[in-house]
C-alpha cells in the first residue's frame, strides 16, 4: 500500500482544510496518509523536526519545504528523484518556469509545487474605506493619504502583527513598490552591496517608519489571523498580507469584493510570489516510494490543484486549471502572474523564503524587525542591513 508520512505545518484555518482535502484524495486513491503536523512559527518548529529526522536516517516521505531550502537539501543529497514521473506526466509543460527553477535541482525534479501565493496584497474593509471616502491606493503616497484619513477617523489604518516575518512581508512589498523588481532582485537575490546601501533602500525604510505609525500599539506578537479579523470587524482599515488571509475571510463567511477588497500593494505591475511545495526525501521502503509517486502525481493533478487552492486561497501551481470556480481575487492573481512574468516584474518572496536562503532571509528579518520596533534611522538600518547580510553568507 502506498504510504506517505507528510510533514507539514498547515494547521490553521483554510490551510488545514486544504491539507485535509489532499489527505482525502490520497486515501481515495488507495494511499495510507500518515499525518505529521508541526504547528507553530510558520515552519520554525518543523525545521528542527525535519533536521532531526534526516540526521537519524529516517526522513518523512514528503515534507513541506520551499525555495532555496529545497536546493540545499538536494545539495546535501537528501532528496529523491521524481524526474521519471515528471517526464511521464509532462511537468515541464505545465509548470511555470519560475516554479521549475525552484523544484528542480541539477535538472532533476526533487519536489512538487502545490500552489502559488501572491504576497503583495492589501486587504481592505470597504465600509471603513467608504467612511473616510477613500479609494484603494495605487501608490505608496496614496496609501499614506488614505491611512492618514483612516487614522483621523479613529480607525486603525494598518492591521499588523509584530512578528519578524510579518514585518518582513510588509517590508518586501514596500521594497518592490518603491524600488521595482530589478532593485529587489539585485538587493535580495544577488545581495549586491551597493544596492543594499543605496538611497532607494533608505526610502524603503523611510516608508517603513511611516507604516509603523499606522499600526496600533498592541501589535507586538499578534498573530496574522488576529490582524485579519481586525480588518473584518472594521477595527482596522487595511492589512498587508499574502492571499492566505483570504482563507480567513472566506472561513468567516465573507465575500470578496463585497465584504472585503483585495488589491495588490502599490508597485509597477510587480508580483511577489510565494509557493508551497512538497520535497520528496530519500526513502528506502517500497511502500513509501509508491506513496511518494502517488502523492506527487496527485498534487500536480488538475483536480487536486483546483480543490486545494480553493481552500487555501492561492492559485494553482500548474497551468491550465480552469479559473471558473475561483473568486475574483484569485482570478486577478492568475492574470497578474502572467503579466508580470512577461514584464519581468515577478519576484520571489524574501519573507517567505523563496528568493533568499534561510540565512539571508533571517538577516533581513533581523534588521527589518529591529528597525520597525525601535526608532532607528533609515540610514542606520541600511548600514545594518548590508552588514548583517554580509555576515549571513
Amino acid at each position, binding site marked *: 500500500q502506498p504510504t506517505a508520512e507528510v510533514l507539514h505545518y498547515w494547521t490553521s484555518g483554510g490551510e488545514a482544510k486544504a491539507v485535509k482535502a489532499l489527505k482525502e484524495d490520497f486515501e481515495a486513491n488507495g494511499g495510507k496518509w500518515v499525518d505529521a503536523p508541526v504547528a507553530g512559527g510558520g515552519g520554525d518548529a518543523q525545521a528542527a523536526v525535519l533536521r532531526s529526522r534526516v540526521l537519524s536516517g529516517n526522513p518523512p516521505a514528503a515534507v513541506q519545504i520551499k525555495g532555496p*531550502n529545497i536546493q540545499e537539501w538536494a545539495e546535501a543529497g537528501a532528496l529523491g528523484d521524481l524526474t521519471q514521473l515528471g517526464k511521464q506526466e509532462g511537468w515541464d509543460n505545465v509548470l511555470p518556469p519560475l516554479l521549475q527553477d525552484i523544484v528542480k535541482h541539477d535538472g532533476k525534479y526533487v519536489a512538487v509545487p502545490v500552489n502559488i501565493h501572491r504576497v503583495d496584497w492589501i486587504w481592505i474593509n470597504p465600509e471603513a474605506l467608504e467612511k473616510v471616502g477613500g479609494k484603494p491606493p495605487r501608490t505608496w503616497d496614496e496609501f499614506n493619504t488614505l491611512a492618514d484619513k483612516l487614522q483621523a477617523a479613529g480607525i486603525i489604518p494598518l492591521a499588523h502583527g509584530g512578528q519578524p516575518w510579518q514585518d518582513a512581508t510588509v517590508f518586501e512589498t514596500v521594497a518592490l513598490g518603491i524600488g521595482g523588481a530589478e532593485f529587489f532582485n539585485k538587493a535580495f537575490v544577488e545581495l549586491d552591496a551597493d544596492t543594499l546601501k543605496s538611497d532607494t533602500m533608505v526610502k524603503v525604510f523611510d516608508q517603513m517608519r511611516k507604516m509603523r505609525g499606522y499600526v496600533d500599539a498592541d501589535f507586538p506578537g499578534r498573530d496574522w489571523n488576529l490582524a485579519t479579523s481586525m480588518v473584518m470587524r472594521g477595527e482596522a482599515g487595511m492589512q498587508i498580507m499574502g492571499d492566505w488571509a483570504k482563507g480567513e475571510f472566506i472561513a468567516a463567511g465573507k465575500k470578496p469584493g463585497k465584504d472585503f477588497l483585495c488589491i495588490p500593494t502599490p508597485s509597477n505591475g510587480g508580483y511577489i510570489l510565494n509557493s508551497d511545495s512538497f520535497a520528496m526525501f530519500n526513502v528506502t521502503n517500497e511502500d513509501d516510494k509508491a506513496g511518494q509517486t502517488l502523492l506527487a502525481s496527485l498534487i500536480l493533478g488538475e483536480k487536486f490543484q483546483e480543490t486545494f487552492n480553493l481552500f487555501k486561497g492561492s492559485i494553482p501551481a500548474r497551468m491550465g486549471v480552469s479559473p471558473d470556480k475561483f473568486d475574483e481575487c484569485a482570478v486577478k492573481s492568475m492574470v497578474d502572474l502572467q503579466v508580470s512574468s512577461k514584464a519581468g516584474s515577478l519576484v520571489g518572496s524574501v519573507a517567505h523564503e523563496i528568493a533568499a536562503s534561510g*540565512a539571508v532571509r533571517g538577516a533581513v528579518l533581523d534588521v527589518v524587525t529591529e528597525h520597525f520596533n525601535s526608532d532607528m534611522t533609515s540610514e542606520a538600518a541600511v548600514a545594518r542591513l548590508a552588514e548583517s547580510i554580509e555576515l549571513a553568507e
Partner: protein
Amino acid sequence: MTQKSIPVKQPLLDWLRRNVAKLVVAPTFALMIFFVYGFIAWTGYISLTKSKMLPTYSFEGFYQYIRLWKMTPWNVAMENLLIFGSLFILISIVLGCLLAIALDQRVRAEGFLRTIYLYPMAISFIITGTAWKWILNPGLGIQNTVRSWGWESFSFDWLINSEMAIYTLVIAAVWQSSGFVMALFLAALRGVDSEIIKAAYLDGASLSRIYLVIILPTLRPVFLSCFFILTHLAVKSFDLVVALTGGGPGYSTILPANFMYEMTFRRNQIGLGGASAIMMLATVMAIVIPYLYSELRERKHD
C-alpha cells in the same frame, strides 16, 4: 556447635564482589560520557566547521566564533541573558526566601499556600505561556482590567515595549521558579536548630535581627544551591521566550538558547549554532565548575 571452616577463595566471584559497585555505576557513567561529553565534543567540533544545512566535518578554525560575536542579535541575546539572568536569580532568591520566612511564622493554611506557591513549577510554559501572554497584554490583561475599574490612565505595556519586554520574561520566570526556591528555603528553615534561636532570644535579639544576623547566614548552602539551580534555568530558558514574546518586539527579548535554535534549525547555520551552544556552555561552566569543585572538596571532610 559444628566446626565452621573459612571457605577457599573463588577468584571470579571475589572479583565480582569487589567490583560490583563500579560495574553498577558503569552504565550510567558510560551514558553520560557518550550523551553529554561526546555530544559536547561533537558540537564543539561542528562549531569549528562551516556546517550549514547538515553537519560537515572539514575543519575551519574559529571562523564561526568571529562571526558570532559580530552579529547584533547574538550580542543582544547575551546582554539579555545578563539582565534577565541577574534579575531572575536575584528576585527569585529574595522572594523565595521572604515567602519561606513568612510561611515559617506558623501561619494558618500553610499547606494550602505552599501548594499555591509551588504549583507553577509543575507546569510547563508551553501550557501557561498563553495565559501569561494574555495577562501581560495591555489590550486584554491587567492594563485593560485596571482601566475597566475606572483608572483610565493606568498603563502596563511592558510586553509590547522593546525596552521593557525583557522584564516581562523576568516576571513570568520568577513566577515559575520562586516557589521552588521557597520550598528549598522552607525545608532549610525547618532544619535550623531551635536552641540557636532560643539562645538568640536570651541574648536579647529581636525577631528580625535573629533572621538577619543568625538564621540567614547559616543558610549559605541553600543560597548557593538556589543560585546554581537558577543559573542553569536562566541559561536554559527557551520555552519562556517562545511562549511569551516569541523573541519580540523585534528580537529584543531573545536569549542565547533561542538564538542557537534559530540559527541551527531555521537559518541552516549549524556551525554557527554550534559556536553559540559552546559559548552558552562556557557561561554555565564558568559558574558551575567552581561550585562543583568546592562542593566535592567540602564533602571530603564530612
